[in-house]
């Protein structure tokens, strides 16, 4: 299941959907907005995305990881809009028969979301707006795995 939404993610509700009788492991990843970075305090971040393409790219990865790591279930939720420090940004939940598959799939999805899904972050500081740049190490990571 995938969702791209403005509102906060209800983590416990989503996690409950993964806890079914036939599975052996559930892994949750929650991305959280930081209160500061190396250049200063962040008032809020703003996430922009490209509707239709975003859903398409996330769906692609959901299908890919479900098959590759034999997942029983997979939930990917990414927020957009204004997000305050401490609030969740993204939720990835994977359920599988064995923990190794659930871990690998979860890690792969979040790496993918960083560089392959059309989201852009802006950090709003007191007197300046910073367009967050993608990191080379993140791009390299997904090239190796995908």
């Amino acid at each position, binding site marked *: 299941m995938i969702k791209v939404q403005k509102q906060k993610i209800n983590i416990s509700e989503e996690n409950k959907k993964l806890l079914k009788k036939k599975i052996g492991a559930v892994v949750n990843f929650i*991305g959280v907005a930081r209160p500061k970075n190396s250049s200063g305090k962040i008032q809020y971040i703003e*996430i*922009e*995305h*490209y509707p*239709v*393409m975003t859903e*398409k790219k996330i769906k692609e990865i959901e299908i890919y990881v479900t098959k590759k790591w034999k997942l029983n279930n997979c939930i990917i939720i*990414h927020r957009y809009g204004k997000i305050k420090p401490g609030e969740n*940004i*993204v939720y990835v939940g994977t359920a599988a028969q064995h923990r190794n598959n659930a871990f690998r799939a979860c890690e792969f999805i*979040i*790496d993918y*979301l*960083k*560089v*392959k*899904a*059309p*989201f*852009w*972050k*802006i950090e709003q500081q007191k007197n300046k707006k910073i*367009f*967050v*740049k*993608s990191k080379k190490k993140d*791009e390299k990571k997904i090239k190796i795995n995908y």
Partner: protein
Amino acid sequence: MKIIYFSWLKETLGTSEENIKPPANIKNIDNLIKWLSTKSTKHRKVFLKSKSIRCAINHQIVNKSSKIKNKDEIAFFPPFTGG
């Protein structure tokens, strides 16, 4: 042809989209970037950084040699920073 801009490109141009009618000799993304660069100083400023700009045609990531058609939706944006 619909052109959509995201992130700092949108900010620099002051608009998120525009409808354009490029001349017939504009056949691919590279031609389009060069043509758009001549539209205004803001466009020039944006496309001067064309090496760091990515592109999609109808929601599909493409490279700069990809062919374009009149009814395409073309998006320009910087590398993604989700997650």
